[in-house]
């Protein structure tokens, strides 16, 4: 049988949105292959209702495994155990850090083929073919699998979550054995929020800053421009500057941050790495200021300014203020 096993990440009683997308995509593909999509959740006392709720996104069955949360290797053990029972032809992951780690570990365990950063999957002659952009998205490669099980790891936001109203799915307990190496990692603290709790999701205009700001104080330029735009504007950031402690995590856009779609996204000193792009590419208008004319952000912005943000932003702030006053 050509069933698809879909990993679902959950935290604090909610399923990750990208995992919901993966379940929906799994259900769509399984239907084309003539099989079913089953979801798998792992955790400590996963609520049955939470697991069952994946039925609404197309899971025909949900497996629940008991184990330590937030780490990849326990899931490799659990998914390998589920797959060894037979019936699965593919394992599918939404976009996210854990999905990458679990999918790769599972590929090693099963001797399976794996494709990551997948943006689209199609069924052809009873097999799945994954599309993966490569070389800075300048080409798209098509990947097929010749292993018994194929592993597909999606790019963030590549698969859309679709509630079908099918109702709760049957939930089954999965017993599995934690491997020796998987028990050697222990979560000490999870999901720590660093820096202030800023709210950016409601903003219509985001002025985002990256490493090109040069130092933490560089964010002043972003704040000044944002306040020139008025109340509906806020400041956002890249992972590089959040990890460096220049700006709070709550304002981070991208794969391990927030996904936003404001009316205007003004990126200052941001290179436009794919992990940042996936969190802001649906913005209605993207303006980029960058000194490097080869920066990837110029490939997908609507207005690009090749220049020094230190020269441009103060003048732009004044001009926006003047325009709004005038």
């Amino acid at each position, binding site marked *: 049988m050509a069933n698809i096993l879909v990993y679902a990440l959950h935290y604090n009683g909610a399923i990750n949105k990208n995992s919901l997308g993966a379940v929906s995509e799994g259900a769509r593909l399984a239907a084309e292959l003539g099989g079913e999509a089953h979801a798998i959740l792992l955790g400590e006392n996963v609520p049955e209702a939470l697991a069952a709720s994946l039925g609404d996104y197309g899971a025909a069955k949900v497996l629940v495994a008991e184990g330590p949360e937030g780490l990849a290797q326990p899931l490799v053990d659990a998914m390998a155990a589920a797959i060894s029972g037979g019936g699965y032809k593919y394992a599918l992951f939404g976009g996210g850090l854990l999905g990458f780690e679990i999918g790769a570990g599972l590929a090693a365990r099963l001797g399976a083929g794996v494709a*990551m950063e997948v943006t689209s999957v199609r069924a052809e002659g009873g097999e799945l073919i994954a599309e993966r952009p490569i*070389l800075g998205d300048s*080409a*798209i*490669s098509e990947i097929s699998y010749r292993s018994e099980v194929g592993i597909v790891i999606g790019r963030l936001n590549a698969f859309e979550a679709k509630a079908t109203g099918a109702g709760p799915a049957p939930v089954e307990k999965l017993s599995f054995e934690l491997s020796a190496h998987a028990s050697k990692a222990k979560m000490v603290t999870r999901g720590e929020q660093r820096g202030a709790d800023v709210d950016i999701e409601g903003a219509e205009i985001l002025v985002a800053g990256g490493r090109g700001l040069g130092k933490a104080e560089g964010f002043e330029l972003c704040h000044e421009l944002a306040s020139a735009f008025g109340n509906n504007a806020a400041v956002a950031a890249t992972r590089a500057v959040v990890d460096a402690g220049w700006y709070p995590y709550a304002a981070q856009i991208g794969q391990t941050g927030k996904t936003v779609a404001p009316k205007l996204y003004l990126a200052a000193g941001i290179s436009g790495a794919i992990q940042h792009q996936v969190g802001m590419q649906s913005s209605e208008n993207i303006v980029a200021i960058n000194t490097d004319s080869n920066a990837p952000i110029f490939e997908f912005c609507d207005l690009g300014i090749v220049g020094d943000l230190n020269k441009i932003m103060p003048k732009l702030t004044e001009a*926006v203020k003047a325009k709004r006053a005038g």
Partner: protein
Amino acid sequence: MKICVLVKEVPDAAVEKRIDPSTGRMDRSGEKNLNPYDTHAIEAAMQIREGGVVSVEEIVAVTMGPESAVRALHKAVSLGADRSVHLSDQALAGSDVAATGYALAKAIDRESPDLVLLGQQSDDGECYTIGAVVAEHLGMPSLTQVIKMDVESDALRCERQAEYGYDTVQIQLPAVISVGDAINEPRYPSLKAIMGAKKKPLDTVASGDVGIDTSKVGGDNSAAQWIAAKAPPAKAAGEIIEDEDTAETVEKIVAWLDERKLI
């Protein structure tokens, strides 16, 4: 403690990367360099050595790649590695991520390290995952994207950013850790270190030397098969302004924003 650092030779950032239409593989001609992300892994190894919590007997740079990849090893040695291992074999050409990770694990296994360090991504392959594959084959715990790592005798306390914020994870050694580029600021090699790099021991090994089953590696044996590469859908290019006269540039930006009712 013995540390293996995995390093890769990649096309220089200034070289336009492309697929050779005749082979479907990456065109590897042109200027090459040590994968910049791997310099953070070497630096992390050096900081453990200099940190003094544990004594580091050896830092070994390991690569799998064609002949030219020795230059990446020389660079790694100039940055602090004591010696290097070059896994090079025609049978390995075209291996997918899973096969590459398997082959690297075999080469590492022979060294019996206490810690394996990698970069967060290769500039050309961009798989982010070799670490997880290698760890599974070695039967070691692992973590990727680590931005802070403290050694505590037989364990590491690692921090990284995951889906919901920062996680701190305690990992028992031996372990496989991929480090993020925020973990440190790599040092520049001294002229003396650059000059001396070619004199440090370099062990060139083939598949058979490290027990690689060649039916599991190479392009034809890889489980993920590239069937085609195509161009991405064309998208309308954005408007580009070169900032020469900033007053004029700002005027243009404001007009552009105004036209779209964004001010």
